[in-house]
Structure formats: structure tokens, C-alpha cells
């Protein structure tokens, strides 16, 4: 025999519901509730690390006295930074092309191609940056001259203090 075929009323004026229907709905509701209660934290848990944005890792990165930067030609500078990804802290090498026309106003560009991330290099004869992966070229100021890259090279914000040059952050595109 099957239990719970009897009808029961849970209060005056309430519609009759079989015990089986009640229990089946109550079970479905509880399972759904637990599912939602667990589902939301699960999604948050999985998405969590994707929210972290890689910054410089330091407030300011010293590049040295401004007198040492060649005038008129972008020059590659490398600096090591400590970066924490997850629970691992690694030393990472950042490279920028520092450029100045007058020895007082500086700009710094990333050497990472905005197409698919290869490293660009300055070709003195052509007065252009060249990316070997898909033959893109960028102008002296970082704007795209030719090829597939969707936007100019990333710029870094700079600061001159006591004749010293510092990188202070990435300029958000």
C-alpha cells in the first residue's frame, strides 16, 4: 500500500491537499532552497580570482635619474617587481619604452603588443615599433601605424621628483 493517500486540512478555509502532494512540494522547495543557498556562493567562489586586476604591485617604481634617458628615441627599460598571484609571490620583469623629446617631459609605453601580446621592439631606421608576430607597426608615440592591433600601446603614468623618474601606475585605456 502507499502511505498518505488520506486528505488532510491544515486549517480552517485552507484547500485540501493530499499528504503526498504536500510532502513532495515541501521536499522540492527545500531542495531548491538548499541548491540556491549553495549555488550562489559556489559561483562567487569560482569567479572570485578573476576579479583581481594586475596593478604595478608597488606604489612607485624608480627608473633612475632623468639625465640618463636618451632624447628623441624610445629606449627600453626593465624593472623587476614583486607580484602576488593567488598565494605565490613572484619576481616579474616589466619592460617599458621611455620616450622624451626634451629631457623634461616623459612618456612610458608598454612593449606588449595590443594585438595578441607579443613583445614589440623599436626599429631605429624605420622610426617605428615593430611586432614580429603579425607584422604590426606602431608610431613613436605608441599609436598604431599598421596591422591588426586594435589600440595604441599601453601608457604608464610617470612622475618626476628630485630629478628622478618613477612609474606610478598604468594608464587605464
Amino acid at each position, binding site marked *: *500500500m*502507499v*502511505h498518505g493517500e488520506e486528505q488532510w486540512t491544515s486549517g480552517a478555509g485552507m484547500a485540501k491537499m493530499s499528504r503526498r502532494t504536500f510532502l513532495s512540494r515541501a521536499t522540492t522547495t527545500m531542495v531548491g532552497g538548499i541548491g540556491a543557498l*549553495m549555488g550562489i*556562493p*559556489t559561483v*562567487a*567562489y*569560482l*569567479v*572570485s*580570482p578573476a576579479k583581481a586586476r594586475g596593478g604595478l604591485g608597488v606604489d612607485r617604481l624608480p627608473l633612475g635619474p632623468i639625465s640618463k634617458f636618451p632624447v628623441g628615441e624610445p629606449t627600453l627599460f626593465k624593472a623587476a617587481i614583486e607580484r602576488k598571484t*593567488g*598565494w*605565490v609571490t613572484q619576481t616579474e620583469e616589466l619592460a617599458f619604452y621611455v620616450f622624451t623629446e626634451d629631457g623634461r617631459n616623459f612618456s612610458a609605453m608598454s612593449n606588449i603588443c595590443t594585438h595578441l601580446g607579443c613583445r614589440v621592439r623599436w626599429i631605429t631606421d624605420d622610426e617605428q615599433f615593430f611586432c614580429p608576430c603579425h607584422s604590426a607597426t606602431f608610431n613613436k608615440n605608441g599609436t598604431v601605424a599598421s596591422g591588426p592591433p586594435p589600440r595604441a600601446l599601453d601608457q604608464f603614468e610617470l612622475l618626476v621628483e628630485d630629478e628622478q623618474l618613477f612609474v606610478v601606475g598604468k594608464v587605464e585605456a
Partner: protein
Amino acid sequence: MIEKIDLWFEERMGWRPIWKALALRNIPKVTWAYTLGSATLLVMVNQILTGILLTIYYVPSPQDAYNSVSFITNEITAGWLIRGLHHWGASAMVILAGLHMIRVVVHGAYKFPREVTWFTGLGLLAVTMAFGFTGYLLPWDQKAYWATTVGTRMLEVVPVIGPWLLRFARGGEELSAVTLTRFYGMHIWVLPALLMLLIGIHMFLVVRIGISAPPKASETEEEGPELEVEA
């Protein structure tokens, strides 16, 4: 709508008899104590799901284990929750399985024809405790390290093969990276496989044989309790 979808699948898969056998099966009139097995099962599902989530960030190496665990607890959204559920669920599962077992003993439900259910139950309890033991080492903190040092050391008193067992459990003389990875492998591959096998048999038998009715108190001492073979 739902009925239509249900019918669409039913026509192609014919799974209604299976649903009937599992969810709509007849059972004797039972008490709340009979829900202890299902409660254990629910916690088991919790352990499986939260355990899988923990492997997304956990790394079983001496350099990374502790840091990856504290990363989960302190930096990942809801990481404290997922880890907390797995941590407390481990104890809850041992307690619930124990209570479930007591209920089975008190009702004499282990007797014919349910001996195999009982034996697989013993296996499940052993597997559950092995989960607890191997899982305890994984955070690789002081407590984990010394608890496992002591726990594995106990194997040494086994006659004849004791010293060998100790070295086998540790994967060498001392606790090391080798111990950590073998405990991890046990915890996430070997034991789950055993658990699935045993729970499969256990649950099959619960459905196939049907559960026992609560024993009735006999009217006269001489008669002895009524033997209910089939529910």
C-alpha cells in the same frame, strides 16, 4: 509544461519504473531514526561538492599547501564557507554514520537478509574515517603535521609488518612531500572510488531488500521477539 517535458523523456527513456522503485517504494511505518542513513548521505554529497571546489585552489606541496589553504579561507569569496562546510561536514559524517549504525544495531536490522548491507556499512565507516585521517594532513600546518606523525606512528605496533606499514603510509622514514601527495591522492581519488562502490551496493540493497520494520516488543518473554524477515 513540466508534465510535457517529463512525458517527452519518458517516451524515449522509459525511466519511470526506476523512479518508482527508488522514490515511490513502499516502506514500513518507521521513526525519525530511520532518516540517519539519508542524513549521512546528504553530508556525503556535501563533502563531494565542497571537496571538488577545494581542489580548484588547493595545491598538495609543502611550499604551497598551507598558503593555498589560507588563500582559500581569507581571500577567495565564500572560501571560508566552502572550506568550513567541508571541515565540519567531515566530523558530521562520522557522527551521523555512527548514529546510523547504532540505530541498525538497536533494531537488529543487520540480521538476515541484510548482512551484506551491514558489511558494506562497515566498509563505509572505515572509508569515512580514512577520509578524515588523510584530509587532516592536507592543510600542512603544525596540527596536521604532528597529528599525522602520531597517527601513522600507531601503525608501527602492528605485529611483524608494523615498521613496514609505517614506512608505506609515510612514503619513507619521515613525513615529507611524498607523504602529502600520497595522502592527497588517497583523499581525492582512491577513497572516493571506494566510497562510490560501497555506497552503490549499500543503497542498492536498501532499495532491493527494503528496509526492516522496527522490531515489536513481544507479549511474553518465552515467545521471543517476532522475526520480521521481509518488510
